[in-house]
C-alpha cells in the first residue's frame, strides 16, 4: 500500500475539484434536485468530453482512460464534496462495473465505448422490495425466449432508474443469477420515480412484464460478477461519503470561526473545539479506510469484500456524524432549508442505507475477514 497520492494524482484531484466548484455550486444542486431527471445533461457532457470521467476506469481499448480504483476514488470523493447531481454513480460506477465484470468481449465492445464517452447512461437494478443487494434475495426472473430472454419482476431503489437509457437487471435464471441488459424504452417496462429523502440522487421503482432482454456474458452463473460489482460500487460510495464528510468538517470549522456569541467566536469554546477535534478524528479514520479499500481494489487484493464493508461502515458513521455535528455547530441556521448542510445530511442518510446498512456491512466484514467466519 502506498498510503499517499502521487503528484499526478494530486494534480488530477485539483483539476476535478476546480471543475466541480465551477459546475456544481450548491445553487446548481438546488436547481437540479427539483428537476425530474435530477442532473444537467450539459454538465454531464462536459464532464465526459473535457475530463473523460465516465471512462476513467474503462480500459483504453474500449475507449476509456485505463486508470484504476484509486483515481476513481479521487473522483468520487470530489463529487461527494461538491454534492454533484449526475448519473455518475449509477452509470459510470454501477452500470460500467457490471458490464466490465459480466459482459462478453463482443458486448463490451458494444457497450463500453458509449459508456466511456458518456453517450449512454446504463444503471444497475438489483435490489427489490426488501432493499437487499444480495444475489440470494433476488426474485425477478428471466426465461429464454425465441430472440433473447424475457424478464418479469419488480426492482426498487434503482438509482437514476427513471432517466437511464438502459438498465442491467439482476435476475434469477436457469444458471443461477444472470445480468440482463434492457432498453429503458422496451415494451412492458414501467418506471415509477420514488420520492427520496435525498433529493440530490433520484431513484425509481421499475416493473418488468415480459420485457425482452439480452443476457450479459456466457451461459453461467453471474453471482460472482454481481458480488464483485457491488463491492466495487461500495468502495466508490465510501469514497464519495468521505468527500462529503470532509466538506462538512470544513464547513463546521469555518462557521465556528466566524460566528460570534458572548463576544467571541463560538469556535473558541472548548465544547465546540473538542467536538470538531473528535469529528476530524472520525472522518480522517474513515478516509484512511476508503483510501485503503480503493488501493486494495486497484491491486486486486483478495480481501476486497471485507475491506469494502469496512470502508462503507466507517464512512457511513463518519459522514452522518459530520452532517449532524455540522448542523449542531451552525445552531438554528443549520436547521433551515436555506442553509446547505441539510442537503449533505440527506445524502449522508441515504448513502448510509444504500448497498446495505452499517449493521449489514459490519457483519459482512467479520464474515469475510480470514479466520472470523
Amino acid at each position, binding site marked *: 500500500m502506498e498510503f499517499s497520492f502521487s503528484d499526478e494524482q494530486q494534480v488530477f484531484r485539483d483539476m476535478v475539484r476546480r471543475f466541480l466548484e465551477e459546475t456544481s455550486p450548491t445553487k446548481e444542486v438546488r436547481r437540479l434536485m427539483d428537476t425530474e431527471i435530477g442532473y444537467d445533461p450539459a454538465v454531464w457532457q462536459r464532464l465526459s468530453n473535457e475530463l473523460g470521467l465516465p471512462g476513467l476506469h474503462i480500459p483504453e481499448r474500449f475507449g476509456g482512460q485505463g486508470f484504476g480504483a484509486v483515481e476513481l476514488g479521487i473522483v468520487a470523493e470530489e463529487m461527494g464534496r461538491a454534492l454533484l447531481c449526475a448519473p455518475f454513480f449509477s452509470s459510470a460506477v454501477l452500470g460500467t462495473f457490471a458490464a466490465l465484470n459480466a459482459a462478453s468481449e463482443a458486448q463490451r465492445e458494444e457497450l463500453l465505448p458509449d459508456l466511456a464517452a458518456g453517450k449512454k447512461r446504463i444503471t444497475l437494478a438489483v435490489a427489490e422490495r426488501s432493499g437487499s443487494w444480495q444475489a440470494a434475495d433476488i426474485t425477478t426472473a428471466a426465461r429464454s425466449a425465441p430472440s433473447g430472454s424475457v424478464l418479469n419482476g419488480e426492482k426498487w431503489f434503482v438509482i437514476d432508474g427513471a432517466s437511464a437509457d438502459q438498465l442491467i437487471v439482476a435476475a434469477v435464471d436457469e444458471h443461477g443469477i444472470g445480468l440482463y441488459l434492457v432498453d429503458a424504452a422496451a415494451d412492458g417496462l414501467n418506471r415509477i420515480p420514488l420520492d427520496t429523502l435525498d433529493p440530490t440522487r433520484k431513484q425509481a421503482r421499475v416493473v418488468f412484464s415480459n420485457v425482452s432482454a439480452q443476457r450479459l456474458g456466457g451461459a453461467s452463473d453471474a453471482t460472482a460478477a454481481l458480488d464483485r460489482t457491488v463491492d466495487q460500487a461500495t468502495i466508490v460510495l465510501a469514497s464519495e461519503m468521505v468527500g462529503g464528510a470532509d466538506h462538512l468538517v470544513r464547513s463546521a470549522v469555518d462557521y465556528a470561526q466566524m460566528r460570534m456569541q458572548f463576544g467571541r467566536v463560538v469556535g473558541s469554546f472548548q465544547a465546540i473545539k473538542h467536538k470538531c477535534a473528535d469529528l476530524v478524528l472520525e472522518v480522517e479514520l474513515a478516509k484512511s479506510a476508503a483510501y485503503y479499500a480503493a488501493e486494495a481494489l486497484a491491486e486486486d487484493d483478495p480481501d476486497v469484500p471485507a475491506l469494502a464493508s469496512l470502508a462503507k461502515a466507517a464512512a457511513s458513521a463518519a459522514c452522518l456524524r459530520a452532517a449532524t455535528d455540522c448542523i449542531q455547530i451552525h445552531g438554528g441556521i443549520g436547521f433551515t432549508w436555506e442553509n446547505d448542510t441539510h442537503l449533505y445530511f440527506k445524502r449522508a*442518510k441515504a448513502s448510509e442505507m444504500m448497498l446495505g446498512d452499517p449493521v449489514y456491512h459490519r457483519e459482512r466484514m467479520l464474515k469475510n475477514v480470514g479466520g472470523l467466519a
Partner: protein
Amino acid sequence: MSEHNEQTVREEVRTWLAANWKPDQPLITWRTLLAESGWGMPTWPAQWYGKGYSMALGNAVLEEIQTAGAVGAAQAGVRMLAAATLLEHGSDAHKAKFLKSILTGEHNWCQLFSEPGSGSDLAGLTTRAELKDGKWVINGQKVWTTSAHHAQYGMLLARTDWDVPKHQGISYFILHMDQPGVEVRPLRQMNGHASFNEVFFTDAIVLPEFLVGERNGGWKIALTTLAHERRGADGVRSFARAEAGQGQVFDELREELAHVNEPYKWYPQRAGRVDLILERAKASGRITDPVIRQEIAELLIMARSSEWTARRARKAQVMGRPQGPEGSLGKLAASNVAKKAAHVHTLLAGADAMLKGSDGLMNGLISEILISVPAISIAGGTDEIQRNIISERVLGMPKEPRTDVDRPFRDVPRNPGKR
C-alpha cells in the same frame, strides 16, 4: 387555601359547571364565563381571572373540568408565556387589557426574542428601540418566531441603551403586530415545514404604555418568560377528550386548534417517536434480530428513565419543594433519546429509510423523524448551553471567564448586521 378543603372545592366546581357548562354556545362566550369565574385558571390570583389556589388544588379543579367533559381556557401556542410574564411583571393596565383575551383565545401572541445574530447569547440582541416624539420606534430583525403570522401581539425584547453592559440595556415591550412597520416572512426548515417566521421591523411603533416594567429592566422579565418556557407552560395542550366532543363549542375549538397547533405538528417527530419503536420493530420483522433488540432495549431504558426523571421534577414542583439536578436534565436527556430513536428508526426502516412522502414508511412519518430530530438539540437552548447550565448552575463548577459583560454593549464584538 389548604389541601383539606379539596373536597369542598371539587363540589363547588361541579355545581358551577352544572349551572354553566353546555356544549352548544359560542366558544368565546363559554371561555369568557370560565375566565370571569376564575375556574379556568385556578392558580392565578383571585383578582385576575383566578382563585389563588396552590398547584395541587388547582389540578383538582382542572380535573373536575375535564371529568365534566368541558372545554378549558385557551392554552395553546405561546399565549401562556405572555400571560405568566404579564401576571408577574405587567401593570394593572396591562393585565386588564390583555389577560382575558388570552384566556378566551381571541388573541394570539408570539415571542420576539431570538435574532439572527443572537441565539444562545440572547442578551446580545441588537434590535433597537428609540424614544422619538413620545413613542418607541423599533428597528431590527427577529427570527424563529412561531405563529408570528397569526399573532395580534408580540413580546418584544429590544435594546434601549448601548452604553451599558449588555443585560442592562434591554427593555421588554408589547408590540402590536398589525402595523406597517412589521413584516413577517415564513422561514422554511430542513424538514420542509415552515413553522417559524422572520420578523422585520422598520420604524415599527410601540406606545409608551406598552413598555413592561422599567426601561432597561427587560432582561429580568425575559428570564421569567424563559423560565415558563422551560417549564413547558406553552405548547400543544388541551383536554384531549374535549376534542372529540359534539356541539358548537367543540366545533370552534377544533378549528382553533387546527390553526394554532399547525406549526407544532412535526414536534412529536423531532422528539424521536419512541412510542412507535416496538410497533415498527414488529412490522419490519427485525424484532427478532439480536443486534436490533439490544439497540431497542438501550433506547427504551434511556427513554423510560428520562420520563421518570421528568416526573420527579414535576412532582417536586407540585409539592413546592426545591428542585434537585433532575430539573435541569430533561432537555439534554430528551435530546439524547431523540438521537438514539432516530438511529433505531433508521435501522428498522432499512432501505425504506431512503424514501419519504407517500413512498416512505407510515406515509412519510418515519422520514420526517429522521429529518426533524436535528432540531431538538438546538431549539430552546442548544445541548452545549444545557451542559454549561448543568455544570455551572447545578454542579456549581466555575464559569468560563467572560469578556462580554464587563463593558458597554457598544464595545462587545458581535456578528456583522444582516438584513
